[in-house]
């Protein structure tokens, strides 16, 4: 018989007991209202402690910290000429585009919202991609060069999502460059999302905003030099992207669930 000490009840509440012992505690609890109340209290303190600190997780990390950690890298990115390796853009409308006049880069090196985040209503937002979202579906199931029309126009100016290229980063993760296009098939936002091989979750590692007219720079954004290519190349270089996958490779991987 397991003695119902505070520690045992806490471990039970935390799901930290071995299965057999947890089952013993569970049956002992049936006849012990006092112990049940203690378990409930341990659950409540855990929940409150976690929730009390969630705001820190969603606010931007001070840029100074990011710079400290990245060191020289933030100043002199060794740019790989990814544009050369990238597939020619398959869509005819691309050639008709005026060069983006203003691009804002959000450096999202490794996944989290440590810089000023784009509003969440954007079709492509830094951070984890929600499981059932349109972006998740496009990343998981659509080949490069095929625009997918978004059912609900809830996102700022984005009517379509299109994968532009697929590649492996230096950690051999699958990453896909994706664009959000407006009604006129003009790209508004570009992003790079990578897939965690451990759990299959996609994470938007960086986004570049492609504005039609010069937008005032906002704090937290790093204004880029000139055009979209610079921005994405910087981002891709940080990830260590050197070569895109061929359409066949992409197709095969997709069929096998990216494994």
């Amino acid at each position: 018989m397991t003695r119902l000490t505070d520690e045992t009840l806490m471990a039970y509440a935390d799901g930290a007991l071995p299965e057999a012992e947890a089952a013993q505690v569970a049956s002992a609890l049936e006849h012990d209202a006092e112990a049940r109340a203690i378990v409930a209290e341990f659950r409540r303190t855990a929940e409150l402690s976690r929730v009390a600190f969630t705001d820190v997780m969603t606010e931007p990390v001070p840029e100074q910290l990011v710079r400290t950690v990245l060191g020289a890298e933030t100043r002199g990115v060794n740019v790989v000429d990814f544009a050369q390796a990238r597939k020619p853009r398959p869509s005819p409308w691309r050639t008709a585009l005026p060069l983006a006049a203003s691009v804002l880069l959000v450096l999202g090196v490794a996944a989290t919202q440590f810089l000023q985040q784009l509003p969440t209503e954007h079709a492509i937002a830094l951070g984890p991609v929600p499981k059932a979202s349109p972006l998740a579906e496009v990343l998981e199931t659509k080949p490069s060069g095929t625009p997918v029309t978004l059912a609900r126009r809830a996102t700022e100016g984005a009517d379509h999502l299109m994968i532009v290229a697929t590649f492996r980063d230096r950690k051999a993760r699958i990453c896909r460059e994706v664009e959000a296009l407006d009604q006129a098939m003009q790209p508004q936002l570009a992003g790079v999302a990578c897939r965690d091989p451990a759990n299959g979750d996609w994470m938007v590692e960086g986004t570049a905003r492609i504005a039609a007219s010069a937008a005032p720079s906002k704090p937290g954004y790093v204004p880029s030099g000139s055009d979209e290519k610079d921005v994405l190349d910087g981002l891709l270089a940080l990830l260590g992207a050197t070569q895109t996958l061929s359409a066949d490779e992409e197709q095969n991987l997709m069929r096998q669930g990216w494994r």
Partner: protein
Amino acid sequence: MNATDTDIRHEIVALLPRLRRFALALAGSRDLADDVLQTACEKALGRLEQFTPGTRLDSWMFQIVRTTFIDHTRRQQRRQHADLTPDLAESLPSDARIHEQTAARADLAIVRAEIAQLPHEQREVLALITIEGLSYQDAANMLGVPIGTIMSRLSRARKKLARALDAPSAGPGHAEGMPQ
């Protein structure tokens, strides 16, 4: 900077929000948490070669943040009380648009304030296990104490927290230097 170095740096950047949360749970105020984290990151970068690839980077970084915080409070012993006093005001929204969240936020600020009142040994196990999700065993390994000690500290911390939250009159206003 070699490729491995770069990878680790990127992974640390990805960990920053969690490290910051951990530092805040230990330190009680954002300013102190960010100071501690800044120093901890500088320390970590100075000894990246001591990190064993294949082991958990988060635990390694938590450990550095923790020792940095302890060093910091030792150095500033006299000012410790002022530093550890959680800044209730900073948790309250200044923006009118999020006015409706005020009540909930204030409650959470009280939880934070109570956590800040816990003895250091209890606060750090609460931060590592309950907030950051380490297992009892991982926390025991990191702190170099038996798992039984970890569990007793954690259960005492949470009992104390529950009592404090159930007794509003003995809430954070009770603590030294807290705004009423």
